[in-house]
């Protein structure tokens, strides 16, 4: 096959220069697309757990890629190896790039050593979503939980990540908390590092 000009030059995706990542699209474009993602997955499942799992899978794919991208672009080809390092990378760097702001809070669970929480007053993906009553505790944040799991797992920190609504006093809408529960091996390894 004969290809010409620009194409020839960029025949391989890896040879293309890495963009600075400052390009934007309208929030509506993303909202429309995300809504189609949710609706399509709704047709593929018969319960809420399954739907959340599928959204999480989709998010995981995004997370795995964003980790790779940001390690190249923002961290000079290095990635975090310590627990707090990777958590703050997710809370600050990843959040900033994906959602335009640092996450509202990052906390350590008080009851369990292996649990951490990232909370967001108004999570981007939940902004245009209202959950019908018959769908109970369904949370589109599962997509973002998937992104977080994708980043963590591919950086060598396997974890179970889930999204939950937490009512806030005096607020009409609940905030979304992303609960991260690290695998045992992660904590064991962390304990051996100085």
């Amino acid at each position: 096959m004969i290809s010409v000009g620009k194409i020839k030059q960029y025949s391989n995706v890896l040879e293309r220069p890495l963009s600075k990542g400052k390009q934007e699209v309208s929030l509506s474009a993303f909202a429309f697309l995300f809504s189609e993602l949710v609706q399509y997955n709704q047709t593929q499942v018969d319960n809420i757990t399954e739907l959340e799992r599928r959204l999480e899978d989709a998010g995981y794919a995004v997370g795995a890629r964003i980790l790779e991208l940001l390690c190249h672009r923002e961290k000079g080809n290095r990635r975090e190896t310590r627990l707090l390092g990777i958590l703050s990378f997710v809370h600050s760097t990843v959040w900033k790039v994906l959602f335009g702001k640092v996450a509202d809070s990052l906390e350590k669970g008080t009851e369990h050593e292996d649990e951490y929480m990232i909370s967001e007053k108004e999570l981007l993906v939940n902004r245009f979503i209202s959950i019908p009553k018959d769908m109970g505790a369904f949370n589109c944040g599962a997509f973002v939980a998937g992104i977080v799991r994708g980043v963590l797992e591919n950086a060598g920190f396997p974890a179970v990540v889930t999204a939950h609504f937490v009512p806030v006093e005096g607020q009409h809408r609940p905030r979304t908390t992303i609960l991260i529960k690290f695998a045992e091996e992660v904590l064991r390894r962390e304990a051996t590092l100085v």
Partner: protein
Amino acid sequence: MAPVAPRSGDAIFANVERVNAELFTLTYGAIVRQLLTDLEEVDEVNKQLDQMGYNIGIRLIDEFLAKSNVSRCVDFKETAEVIAKVGLKMFLGITATVTNWDVEGTTCSLILEDNPLVDFVELPDTCQGLYYCNILSGVVRGALEMVSMKTEVTWLRDMLRGDDAFELQLKLLKQVPEEYPYKDDE
């Protein structure tokens, strides 16, 4: 009351809330990958992407009309220009060139100057029949149907398939006459 002047795509884009294009691109990639896993056949994926785009188009047209002040286009030529310069700009931040008109003025091509859907994408050998951006053609078709235009929208050139540009062909099939009661409130 004097008609309000249509706003330029740039002006609208500057004023709407925006998100990082990479979130959009990677999310779209995740959708395509899910479809490939679920449906297995590339043709089915093309169809599903088109359907999703259509669903978006029929909803998106409302926002487009509300924010752009664009009123009825005098002819299909104006329609194509509006899509290329206002529609694509306000949602995706890109523009297109309209070209290759046929003599009747019912078929033309949009050449996309940039395409945020395909960043980081390379089609593997197993997906050669895939129209990766098929959602976009669905959006255009759906949106135009809501303003009484039946169209056929197809990809003529696709850089992921080795072409030198992204070319989307718009073909006006028919103008659906508005039926009584007229919904127009002019």
